[in-house]
């Protein structure tokens, strides 16, 4: 038996290679002093090149690296979504103290590292590769959360995320061990083979499936494993929060879908009801939790929990339509959430209210260019017609009904009704409240904690000169995301075709 060096498909790996090379490059270049625009521009260039390469490989379908990774449009969809979010997050991080102080390009390198992890986890079809990618995705995020080193909430958020994230990772790892024990393989297709027949209902296997689901539920902030989400979202620097909210979610969901549909397909009848129950709990917990929030970041954290519940419905039905709906929703959700976060970042700098809902009060009059993306984003998150959010919900509900989970579709609808109460509260603040007078600094219990500028005593937030805090790039990215949300709400077909292609590439693997 002769040893064959594995064939390396450089073209198929090119997005991953580009990201890795870019990461190293940014880190090296960051060692020297440059004008402050150089590193962000480089990072954007790296993700742009990666996205270009991903589009180039869009129609390919093959195994990479001895079957550890699978090159298909389903995984590349995550690459595209995360590259887009990373590019916008870099823009949002302009003049962010966390990004400028986290020495020598570390912020950008970590961001690229996380993107790399996300790209890999979406392509992984081997338990080992999956876990390595999961860690590669998570560890940079722990650091990024804590990157505003002088702000106590940021450090707290990083630590919290580290602890919870490690628990999640450990749970996943235990689950993987049990799955390997039950099926005798670490390959997804091998596991599927091993679990076919009686093996699939073995207690060991079912415990393994449950642990994997639990661990990944921590990552995707699905209730009841969501407790960290609002705290971490609130404490982390806002651009990082935005990145976690959209990219992590998309990547983890796509990876979850591949793992459950491909590897655990034979046990589908066991995990479908369990995931459906998690989806309903998430929808309920997220929407009810968001009702009383005054901090926009906490509100978006809870809303993200509810949205995770909606997306989970796409996995539960386990049909091609469900996966299409999942990919579509993940992409649409990325755009609408980024529109909202861009506005939150902008207002955090301009107003003295941090991320409190007061910070957007009355901007319908004073800052219409920010008010519109925020309004569109909120309407889309609430799933109102004319936005891509409506199309996404339509898609998910149709997939649920189609997959004999009509009650899950009704649960989505009921969750949406509850969610209106808090999404509309933000819109009402934007358009129907007077702008809070600028002179008195906020005080009292409502403002405490929400304000790194006073509670953490971070001088850098105050050090930003007032005039410089208005950044056209941030406003521009908010407008672009808002416009895209409307465009895909009126003419969703391009995005739907894109999602169908991505989902179709996975189902051909399964069959």
């Amino acid at each position: 038996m002769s040893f064959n060096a594995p064939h390396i498909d450089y073209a198929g790996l090119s997005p991953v290679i580009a990201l890795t090379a870019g990461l190293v490059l940014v880190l090296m270049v960051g060692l020297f002093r440059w004008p402050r625009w150089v590193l962000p521009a480089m990072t954007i260039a790296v993700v742009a090149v990666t996205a270009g390469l991903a589009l180039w490989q869009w129609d390919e379908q093959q195994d990479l690296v001895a079957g550890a990774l699978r090159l298909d449009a389903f995984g590349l969809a995550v690459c595209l979504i995360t590259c887009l979010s990373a590019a916008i997050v870099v823009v949002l991080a302009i003049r962010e103290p966390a990004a400028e102080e986290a020495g020598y390009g570390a912020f950008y390198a970590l961001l690229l590292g996380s993107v790399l992890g996300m790209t890999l986890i979406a392509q992984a079809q081997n338990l080992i590769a999956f876990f390595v990618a999961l860690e590669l995705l998570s560890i940079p995020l722990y650091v990024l959360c804590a990157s505003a080193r002088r702000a106590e909430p940021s450090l707290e958020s990083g630590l919290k995320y580290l602890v919870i994230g490690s628990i999640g990772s450990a749970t996943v790892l235990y689950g993987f061990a049990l799955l390997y024990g039950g099926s005798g393989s670490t390959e997804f297709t091998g596991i599927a083979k091993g679990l076919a027949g009686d093996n699939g209902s073995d207690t060991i296997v079912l415990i393994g499936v449950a642990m994997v689901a639990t661990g990944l539920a921590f990552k995707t902030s699905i209730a009841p494993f969501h407790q960290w989400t609002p705290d971490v979202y609130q404490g982390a620097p806002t651009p990082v929060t935005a990145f976690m909210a959209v990219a992590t979610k998309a990547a983890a969901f796509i990876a979850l879908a591949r793992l459950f549909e491909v590897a655990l397909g034979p046990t589908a009848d066991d995990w479908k009801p369990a995931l459906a129950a998690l989806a309903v709990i998430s929808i309920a917990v997220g929407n009810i939790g968001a009702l009383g929030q005054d901090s926009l970041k906490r509100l978006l954290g809870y809303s993200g929990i509810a949205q995770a519940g909606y997306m989970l419905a796409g996995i539960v039905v386990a049909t091609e339509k469900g996966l299409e709906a999942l990919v579509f929703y993940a992409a649409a959700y990325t755009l609408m959430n980024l529109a909202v976060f861009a506005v939150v970042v902008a207002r955090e700098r301009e107003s003295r209210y941090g991320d409190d809902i007061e910070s957007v009060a009355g901007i319908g009059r004073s800052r219409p260019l920010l008010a519109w993306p925020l309004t569109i984003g909120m309407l889309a998150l609430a799933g109102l017609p004319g936005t891509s959010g409506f199309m996404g919900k339509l898609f998910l509900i149709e997939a649920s009904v189609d997959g004999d989970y009509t009650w899950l579709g009704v649960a989505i609808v009921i969750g949406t009704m509850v969610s209106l109460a808090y999404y509309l509260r933000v819109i009402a603040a934007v358009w129907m409240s007077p702008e809070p007078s600028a002179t008195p600094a906020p005080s009292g219990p409502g403002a405490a904690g929400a304000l790194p500028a006073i509670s953490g005593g971070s001088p850098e937030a105050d050090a930003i000169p007032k005039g410089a805090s208005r950044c056209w790039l941030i406003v521009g990215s908010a407008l672009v995301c808002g416009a895209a949300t409307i465009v895909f709400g009126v003419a969703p077909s391009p995005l739907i075709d894109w999602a169908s292609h991505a989902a179709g590439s996975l189902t051909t693997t399964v069959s």
Partner: protein
Amino acid sequence: MIEVLLWAPLAFALAAALFPGRIAGWVVAVGGLVSLAMAIAIVVGFDPSGGLQHTVDESWIPTLGVRYQLAVDGISLFLVLLTTVVWLAGTVWSALNPPERPRLYFLMFGLAETSVLGAFLAQDLILFVLFFDLMLIPFYFLFGSWGTEHPGRPEEDEGPIRPQPATLKMFIYTLVGSLLMLAGAIATGVLAADGGSVDFNIQHLAADPLGSGSQYWIFCFFAAAFLVKMPAFPVHGWMPDAYRVAPLPALALFSGVLSKVGAYGFLRVVLPIFPAATSHFQEVILVVAVASILYGSVMAFTQTSARLILGYSSMAQLGFITLGIFSLRADGADGAVLNMVNHGLVVAPLMLIAVLLVERAGSDDIRRMGGLATRAPVLAALFLIATLALLAMPGSANFIGEFYILNGTFQSKIVYAFVAAIGIALAAYYALRLYQAAMHNRKPEGIESREVGLLQGAILGGLIACIIGLALWPGLILHRADDSVSGQLSATSEAPTEVAQR
């Protein structure tokens, strides 16, 4: 033509954002005028026995089976015309006296008109639901941003009503219904396809109805959406607050047209697609309708706010319309279609007159009004005509509509017809009470009687002329609606029901 009709208001409203705020209203009014012209052209060229006309059918979201399908038939024809007429009146009225932030205000007007027209024209169930939900957004902004605080009823320990909570209440109430409807609509299409390709065309769905088990629960979802929108008796909780804070010109549109969309939905969607459920739940809806008539009428003559009198009277009138539809007789449904148009034409000018009353009396409390007719004969005459039409005076088209409705109900469910007939007498009381308290009686201190301005008078005059025109020639609508109405009812009358035996 039908696409210009639908999109012109929104297009002009978007264009108006580029103009200075002073003339934004007039730009939107031009859009409304274009729509009105198209609507008139469609009415003129309408073939009464032609079924669906001016059909547009384009692929929109093939993956989901949703198509962009528009058409007009005898039922929607005059509702479209009503929409364009009332909207033009409301837009010009607002343009005469533009509110603050006019561009946003008129953008919402345009968006609202397009979405209402879309709901009337849509032939695809999902498209219908989309427009139905969409029309709430502009009214949320209009009521919330330009609404005014209302003192409430201090004598009943009711504090002041602020626009934001009231609007939020309205939004959630209405959307609860319509989101359930979205789930129901999707379920209808998917279940009807039964594994095949999904199709949401209303006529195709009607041709191949679901099993009665599915029909029952989906019917409930749709009925919830439409009854909340009207509003009907047990689900009207949002109405009093929202009506009291809303800006009156927007309220004229809301009350005049949006409430009809619910009734229209029953005729367009529920009756043909869920025939078994319609027969099954007929009595329930009839009870709701009669309860709305009685409750609305009683509330209307105990209220002191002019807005609420009109609001509750709408509720009673919508009860009549629902009664006519659910008599499941062609007469009743014909009368319902006629009265939808009538009521829209009556309540819109009355809301605009309420603007004038509030201007003169300083509040909408009719106890503080009085004697406003002394120096304003034209206003008084216009007001009187609208009032008489509201109470369905013989000779008005409303009378003919109610006659048809009751005639239909007598033949199918005689008990309900008897109870509902009381509502007509009550209507006379509350309508005349409003008129009398405002225009006659002794004039309190500090209130001046002033004639209506020329332009505002012209707008009111135009609407009143429509009322008179319809009174003289109700066949204009009945003749064109009859065929389509019978078509919608055919499914339910074929279904084995106990209607005929009763």
